[in-house]
């Protein structure tokens, strides 16, 4: 407000000193002015808002909520894809593990069968050799018995003749044989 209230013209609502008489709100002289400018202001504001501002802000808000909705949908899609990828990865891992254990089992079986075959072969070889050895031992034993018999007959003949008897070859042999059997 201007500070020169003393210069204000006296009227129905203002006294000579520039102060209001009663309430300025109720001064009828001023009402048409206020009403006119109020109506002008409201019309201007209405047109500015309804023609320019409100459609623009409404469009911006709609666009923003659309963008947000889209982004959320996109994020949901990505999440689903990530879950699928994880499932695929898990499945691949499980498959690989199963494959690996299968291969291990096969390898173990192959080794086992090889081993069994080798063992059987070795066993057969060992038993063949054992049999051979036993035969050789039996031969050696038999030949040893024969040699002992010969030596014993000879010794017995020599003993008999040395003691002055006549050694009957047949008797000596029979006696030695009987002794050896005993």
């Amino acid at each position, binding site marked *: 407000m201007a500070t020169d209230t003393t210069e204000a013209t006296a009227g129905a609502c*203002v006294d000579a000193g520039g102060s209001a008489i009663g309430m300025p709100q109720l001064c009828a002289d001023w009402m048409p002015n*206020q009403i006119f400018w109020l109506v002008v202001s409201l019309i201007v504001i209405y047109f500015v808002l309804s023609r320019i501002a409100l459609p623009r802000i409404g469009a911006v808000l709609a666009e923003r909520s659309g*963008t947000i909705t889209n982004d959320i949908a996109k994020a949901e899609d990505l999440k689903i894809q990530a879950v699928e990828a994880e499932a695929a990865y898990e499945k691949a891992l499980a498959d690989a593990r199963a494959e690996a254990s299968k291969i291990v089992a096969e390898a173990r079986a192959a080794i086992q069968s090889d081993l069994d075959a080798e063992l059987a072969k070795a066993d057969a070889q060992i038993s063949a050799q054992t049999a051979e050895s036993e035969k050789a031992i039996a031969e050696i034993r038999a030949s040893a018995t024969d040699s002992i018999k010969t030596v014993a007959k000879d010794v017995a003949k020599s003993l008999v003749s040395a003691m002055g008897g006549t050694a009957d070859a047949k008797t000596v042999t029979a006696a030695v044989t009987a002794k050896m059997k005993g």
Partner: protein
Amino acid sequence: MATEEHSEGGLVFHPLDQFIVKPLFGDGPVHWYTPTNVTLWMGIAILCIIGIFVMGSRGRATIPTRLQSIGELIYGFIYKMVEDVTGKDGVKYFPYIMTLFVFILFANYLALLPMSYSATSMIAVTAIMGFGVFIAVTILGFVLNGAAFLGLFWMKDAPLVLRPIIAVIEVISYFVRPVSHSIRLAGNIMAGHAVIKVFAGFAALTLVSPVAILGITAIYGLEVLVAGIQAYVFTILTCVYLKDALHPAH
């Protein structure tokens, strides 16, 4: 303005001088078309509104600037209010309600600037808006609902004996609406500003001036709240009256 006249020693209270309408140019009489301080401050309100709602949203940014956020906040607030109170079919009246709200809001807040003029403290101003809403809503009610609009006054839930009495009360309260609607706003703004001026008058006394200035500060703080709340109240009551016109059945 009251203390400008330096009368010797005594306190001078002219708390209502701040509401005097003065021509902007010269000292002539105030005709209906004269550009006055009312014109000036309404014009400033219009410029602020254009600044926030048109300049602020110029970028149409998806991520808003500060000014655009303010505009969007007010837009969203009033839009939601209209939608919540009047329902979906009230949304087409949103621009009118938005016009009233931003005008009152900006006029109220600009009036809080020192040396400014409080346009919304004038009963002529608020009465035009109050009666404008009243007449518009009443016409709208009859146009949309015909004679069924009178069902607003005829409580079907009440006992038959009471219905005529209630109808009389309802009719009276309906016609009191625009009066209370407009005087509530003007009275709040005028009273607050006048009280600030009274405190300012006391500030001329050295002894009480600290209290007076504290009082001005406190009332100013209160007025900051009142300015927003009264704009809100005027708007939500407009929405409520509009709802009655759209859906007169209780």
